[in-house]
């Protein structure tokens, strides 16, 4: 090799290394964005109380009051008023998860093509929702706004290197927001309050179903079908009339209804905890991306599967 070719060779090697690093950052960014978006959307369904849940709560409470011949009970009215106020305070968490999903989608776009403008807008919304959560749940807590800045245009650099650096910076900004909100959502007292409220809402919703089952409105047929399935057995026609004549069978059906209701109430706490676990797992992956280490998305996918299972137990069932 002639000495005068050496600079060109070094430049080619450097370019090749730079290109490899850029590709790794972008592919890691895209993978993390996909996992993060899926996790944030699932968390929103599993760990927060949606408008549909509050509509179900109101219906259940009003039905229950009518069922008990207690329609004008002022305490029941006050309960619904209190829950409306709590819903307003806790909506900040749902909004944050919604904006987090949007920010991950924008990170994915940024990793695929130059979408820095889209990301800046999405991360600005994310910071706004994080600051709103701080103001609603932890007055005087740390502000997230300072971590959300426009991405550097990187003038004078190779386009792929600029894009790769933007992905790392964007990932860092999402990580900054996660670092702000995770301690707030992990605080034991606050966590207990949110979970208690979720359980309280679940208890009210399943109580109405319990009233109706006890009154004979619902059939135990589907449950008996499930119990007979291992042996290929199916309930006889008019099975509920048979159940009425056999208190033991009715008691068994009621026991399953009660256990399912308790499972539904207890799932609220598990769904919240898994959601915070998912946020922590995402934060770990952001740190790995920044350090140029390979990502481990299996943990996030496992939490996601767990959250999906819990969502099916909550009332009304989520994500269907």
């Amino acid at each position: 090799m002639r000495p005068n070719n050496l600079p060109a060779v070094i430049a080619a090697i450097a370019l090749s290394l730079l290109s490899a690093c850029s590709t790794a950052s972008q592919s890691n960014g895209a993978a993390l964005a996909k996992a993060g978006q899926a996790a944030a959307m699932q968390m929103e369904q599993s760990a927060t109380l949606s408008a549909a849940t509050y509509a179900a709560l109101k219906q259940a409470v009003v039905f229950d009051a009518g069922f008990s011949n207690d329609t004008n009970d002022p305490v029941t009215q006050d309960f619904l008023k209190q829950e409306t106020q709590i819903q307003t305070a806790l909506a900040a968490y749902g909004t944050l998860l919604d904006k987090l999903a949007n920010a991950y989608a924008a990170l994915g776009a940024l990793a695929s093509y130059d979408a820095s403008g889209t990301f800046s807008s999405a991360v600005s919304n994310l910071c706004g929702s994080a600051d709103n959560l701080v103001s609603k749940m932890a007055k005087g807590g740390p502000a997230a706004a300072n971590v959300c800045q426009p991405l550097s245009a990187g003038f004078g650099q190779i386009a792929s290197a600029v894009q790769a650096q933007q992905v790392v910076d964007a990932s860092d900004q999402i990580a900054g927001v996660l670092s702000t909100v995770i301690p707030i959502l992990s605080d034991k007292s606050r966590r207990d309050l949110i979970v208690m409220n979720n359980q309280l809402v679940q208890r009210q919703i399943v109580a109405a179903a319990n009233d109706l089952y006890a009154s004979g409105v619902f059939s135990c047929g589907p449950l008996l079908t499930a119990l007979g399935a291992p042996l290929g057995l199916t309930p006889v026609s008019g099975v509920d009339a048979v159940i009425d004549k056999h208190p033991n069978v009715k008691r068994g059906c009621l026991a399953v209804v009660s256990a399912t209701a308790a499972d539904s109430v207890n799932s609220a706490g598990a769904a919240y905890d898994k959601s915070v676990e998912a946020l922590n797992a995402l934060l770990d992956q952001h740190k790995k991306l920044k350090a140029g280490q390979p990502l481990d998305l299996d943990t996030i996918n496992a939490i996601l599967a767990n959250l999906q299972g819990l969502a099916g137990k909550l009332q009304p069932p989520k994500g269907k």
Partner: protein
Amino acid sequence: MPTTDDVMASLNAADQAANDAYNAAVAANPDGDLKTLHQARMKTADALATAIGKALNSDPAVTAAQQALDTATADINAKLATLKNLAAWLALLNNLASLAADLAKFLV
């Protein structure tokens, strides 16, 4: 003196028990007169919802009130063996009662 978490846990347990009792009564007698039972159940639910709302919305105030109360409690405990003056005791206890009342306002 119970902490905010203790008070909330007690309210939650009371609501769970009231709900279980109501459900058991409905299961045993779905066509019975359930009005009084329903009112009792909703009282515990309302008390819990009200306390959750106050604790969530007034977090710093509750925390400050609880910390002041816990400090006063610790102060009294620390002086148990040394304090002889009745007037000093009375001042400490009055302060404790006042702080307890302040905290109770947030939770009931």
